[in-house]
């Protein structure tokens, strides 16, 4: 057993940290977040050309780096720390995972090399139902419908909360057979975003560092080659894709929770009241200690989930733990990021409430990330069903 980063993984992490500290400082984040698509296209090109991060876990046969999910998570953690505004999460953690898990060989050969070249993509699987009951992200949230028209498929319906849905060049769309419900009748399609009948609307959001969109599908005609896997049988793959993205999102949250704590602890060491740095007061130290405790155990949960995600992609023996590991990591990290960001405002005092200080960027990103792919309550209920339901022996 060796539950620690290898030297190579440490190098990947440190490189990401150094690069992001330079290119994703407060000024850069604030400039990107008010742009239409929410990221700096030049920086994305630099990431794709110089760093090659978008290719990290794409197999070498498709032009990727062929690394694993632990390496991916080590990098995403740093993106969370520096609030990187980019289509990385949508392209790599959603769409690339979808292609890897559910794509046909022809689709992988066609699209993965293009993602390696910098094409952006996302997963669009939820309708307005995702917003019900305080957030639900399982099969019931798939609402778009698919019908046959000759050999072609016709996609219709509204997709909501689509990450980078306004800018992605390629969409992975989930749709269900009319009249089906639950996990039945769900199919996945690869659809270029400029296909006729697709209408996209960027949603103004409280967290400006990640853009969401509504996508309406008005009898969008796609060829049989767009279908991923078997018609109506895609739920198990879609569930794996969502779980994999959930693990990455938890890593991002943990990075954010770490950074907002670090910023706050530094501030309390400099801020003086009653002739002492406020960091010397136990009322402040104890809050900081709780923040660190939660971040450290969150980190343990995320790294474990990353190992499980890697085995899920490669068919290892821990693959069966993916549902659980994703929900453990996401429920814990969602709560920790929000609680750390909330305490960060309190510990900053009045300046924490200003637009000028960066704390509000973390506070807003924390709540947005919490509600993306299921908040703590949602994931705990998912765990409760695994633990508690079924026949009593």
């Amino acid at each position, binding site marked *: 057993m060796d539950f620690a980063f290898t030297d190579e993984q440490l190098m990947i992490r440190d490189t990401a940290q150094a690069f992001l500290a330079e290119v994703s400082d407060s000024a850069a984040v604030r400039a990107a977040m008010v742009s239409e698509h929410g990221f700096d296209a030049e920086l994305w090109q630099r990431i794709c050309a110089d760093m090659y991060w978008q290719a990290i876990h794409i197999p070498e046969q498709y032009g990727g780096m062929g690394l694993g999910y632990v390496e991916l998570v080590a990098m995403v953690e740093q993106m969370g720390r520096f609030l990187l505004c980019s289509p990385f999460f949508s392209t790599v953690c959603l769409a690339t995972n979808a292609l890897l898990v559910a794509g046909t060989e022809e689709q992988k050969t066609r699209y993965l090399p293009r993602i390696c070249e910098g094409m952006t993509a996302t997963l669009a699987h939820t309708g307005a139902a995702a917003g019900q009951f305080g957030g639900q992200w399982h099969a019931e949230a798939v609402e778009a419908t698919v019908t046959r028209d000759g050999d072609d498929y016709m996609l219709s319906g509204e997709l909501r909360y689509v990450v980078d849905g306004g800018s992605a060049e390629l969409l992975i769309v989930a749709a269900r057979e009319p009249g089906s419900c639950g996990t039945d009748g769900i199919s996945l399609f690869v659809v270029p975003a400029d296909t006729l009948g697709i209408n996209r609307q960027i949603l103004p959001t409280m967290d400006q560092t990640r853009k969401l969109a509504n996508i309406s599908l008005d009898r969008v005609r796609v060829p049989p080659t767009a279908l991923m896997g078997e018609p109506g049988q895609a739920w198990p793959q879609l569930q794996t894709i969502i779980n994999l993205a959930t693990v990455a999102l938890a890593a991002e949250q943990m990075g954010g929770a770490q950074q907002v704590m670090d910023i706050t*602890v530094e501030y309390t060491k400099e801020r003086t009241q009653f002739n002492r740095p406020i960091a010397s007061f136990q009322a402040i*130290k104890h809050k*900081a200690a709780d923040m660190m405790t939660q971040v450290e*155990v969150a980190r343990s949960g995320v790294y474990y989930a990353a190992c499980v995600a890697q085995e899920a992609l490669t068919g290892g023996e821990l693959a069966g733990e993916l549902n659980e590991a994703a929900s453990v990591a996401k429920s814990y990290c969602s709560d920790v990021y929000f609680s750390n960001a909330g305490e960060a405002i309190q510990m900053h005092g009045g300046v924490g409430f200003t637009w000028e200080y960066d704390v509000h960027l973390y506070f807003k990103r924390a709540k947005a990330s919490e509600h993306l792919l299921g908040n703590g309550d949602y994931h705990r209920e998912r765990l409760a069903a695994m*633990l508690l*339901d079924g026949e009593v022996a």
Partner: protein
Amino acid sequence: MKLSFSAEDEQFRQEVATWLQQNLTGEFAKLRFRGGPGDEHMYPEERKRWEQKLAEGGWTCIGWPTEYGGRGCSIEQQVIFNEEYARAGAPGHVGHIGEGLAGPTIIAFGSEEQKQKYLPGIVAGTELWCQGYSEPGAGSDLANVKTRARFDEEKGKWIINGQKVWTSLAHESDYIFVIARTDPDSVAHKGLGFFLMKMDQPGIDVRGIEQITGTCEFNEVFFDDAECDAGDIVGAPGDGWKVAMGLLGFERGVSTLGQQMQFQNELNQVIEIARRNGAAKNPAIRQRLAKAHTELKIMRYNSMRMLSGQGGSDGSLQKEALIYKLFWATWHRTMGELAMDVLGPESQVLEGGPYELSRLQAMYLFVRSDTIYGGTNEIQKNIIAERGLGMPKEPRVAAK
């Protein structure tokens, strides 16, 4: 990152499991899942014999070097042993203070004579130890020790006077290690000595403390001209604090996974009750059970990180180790509350009179001590903030 154990270690796991299965039988069968925290008063004689049974099988002090009678097991093997021990429901280990604290301290800081005199009894499971650190005026402020040690030239012995408190297993122990002030004019952590003392002597009196559970695991120990041989001070007079604290930095947490196996047993029991009495259908209880499960999983992963970590070059704890006590103690206290809330009004009905608690009821009450002993949550938070985050100490108030 690699999460699995080697084939060799898995074979070791099999060996441990088989031995426990074959030996936790007969008079020892009733000890299964007994004698843990909150239950340490149960079956003391049988558990002492069990300790010797373990020794016969070579399962005491497995992490000690072979030259001192240990097995020289790797960290992984010690983890596996602790996991299997807890999984089998083997009883609370009466020798753990000797094996985990007294012995390693003697190995690290003791004289050759002390090693010869004390280590074999610990390995054989025949000599039990207790720890004399806390005092009525030295709780969180542990260095404020008032117990005094003076050297009597005529007798050629150290004479100890004072009082220790919260001494677990004192009434069952053969020896106690004590920190006491060798320099009467010293304050705080300076001027202390570390003494190895025989319990069975006229100058030592042990009185049980009746706890919130109605039982007595903890004791007061009174020293009234108690004697300690000249050769039984570890290190020099004045080195006591260094010796007492020396091992804390090297604690790698091999017992943590075993402890978590016990926690898992408790959680499983509570889940079983919730499924039977319908509490599992209550959305608020579902959330709390899922949270307990989540945090116990994460606690396990955190221990795996601790065990894989290298620690600081000076033996200092990594961040994931620094937070461990605060996290598990708080988790366990919350688990106690959850157990009662799952049981509902039935939680208030005892097993029998006059005050016979069920295991879960005893656990619920006993875990209130988890966030106090071994450094309160508040002290843990100070340590985390100061060592983990570099935040300044509170200004000290000068002693009067």
